[in-house]
């Protein structure tokens, strides 16, 4: 193995991360190469310097963490009882789409409701008019048949309504 390749192993040798064979090869190389030996010495010194940077942790870490956790817990209780209005503004696209969807849904209900009324109206009108006319016959006797009915029954009933009447009432 050439010197450059061997030098790349020095760092792992320093960290005791080489297998036995690699370790022996590095040691053999170090005993014969002054430059590599100097590099290794340098790496070792710097490593010791860096280990010297370690320092005792100041006291009060847990107390600080604890108070911050407790503060955040209080905050989360408060947030459970308040509307997340700020959050809505943070997500405008889903909020706008939801509002649009609700509007379309409500509007379609309104339209369907109007259509249903417009279908039922002539039928109701026809039944009321018919019952009034029948009651008129009974109350006034046969003479009254010559009199003009106050209800105008000469309106047109749609095919759909007629089919409904035929099926359920036999008109």
């Amino acid at each position, binding site marked *: 193995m050439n010197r450059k390749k061997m*030098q790349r192993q020095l760092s792992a040798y320093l960290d005791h991360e080489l297998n036995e064979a690699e370790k022996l090869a590095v040691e053999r190389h170090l005993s014969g190469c002054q430059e590599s030996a100097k590099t290794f010495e340098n790496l070792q010194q710097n490593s010791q*310097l860096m280990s010297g*940077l370690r320092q*005792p942790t100041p006291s009060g870490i847990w107390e*600080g963490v604890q108070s911050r956790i407790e503060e955040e817990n209080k905050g989360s209780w408060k947030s459970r009882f308040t509307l997340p209005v700020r959050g809505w503004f943070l997500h405008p696209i889903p909020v706008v789409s939801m509002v649009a969807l609700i509007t379309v849904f409500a509007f379609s209900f309104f339209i369907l409701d109007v259509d249903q009324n417009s279908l039922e109206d002539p039928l109701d009108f026809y039944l009321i008019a018919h019952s009034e006319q029948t009651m008129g016959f009974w109350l006034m006797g046969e003479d009254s048949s010559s009199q003009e009915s106050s209800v105008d029954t000469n309106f047109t009933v749609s095919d759909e309504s007629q089919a409904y009447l035929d099926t359920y009432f036999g008109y």
Partner: protein
Amino acid sequence: MQTYNILSITTFFSKKAAPIVDQHEIDLVKRCQNRDMQAMEEIVRQYKNQVYNIAYGMLGSPEDAQDITQDVFVSIWEKIGQFRFRSKFSTWLYRIAKNVSLNEKSRRTSRKTDVVEIDDSQAWVPVDYQTPEDEILASEQQQILHKALGQLKESYRTILVLREMDELSYEDLSAVLGCSIGRVKSRLYEARMQLRGILKREN
């Protein structure tokens, strides 16, 4: 004729080797996931030195390191529910510590303040030096070293801090940094050589 269980073969290839974890750590994390403050206190006491040293190595200021250490543990408390025991808890914790420290550093860099620059208020007084001269010398050396670390590439500084200050093994480094052991080996070598070059120039 030997038959092969397809399921076991696919499981073998799809899963990574199970991490070695001790039962006490699993219990501790599970208690913490159930919002047990005593378990959290134990975690803080167990890992505060490592987290503090990562933050100190990255930022170079004891005050900032103290704040970052607290940030890391608060973040762990918030995210511990997401921990799925797929790696060692310490690996997960170191990764959070590294990320929080790097985020803080880049936030400060964007505000154009050099956090690695050491001022007098940051002077650290080590406990076991024989004479006041030794103390001064050590303090000067540390200032130079911090300055040199600040000049390193971010990935080099990270790997050096994790290795030299927290003594993480190559296997742990590969898990924390998300790269192969071979890459850890070469990156550490490059980082050390670059640091050596900077320190030579400084001296």
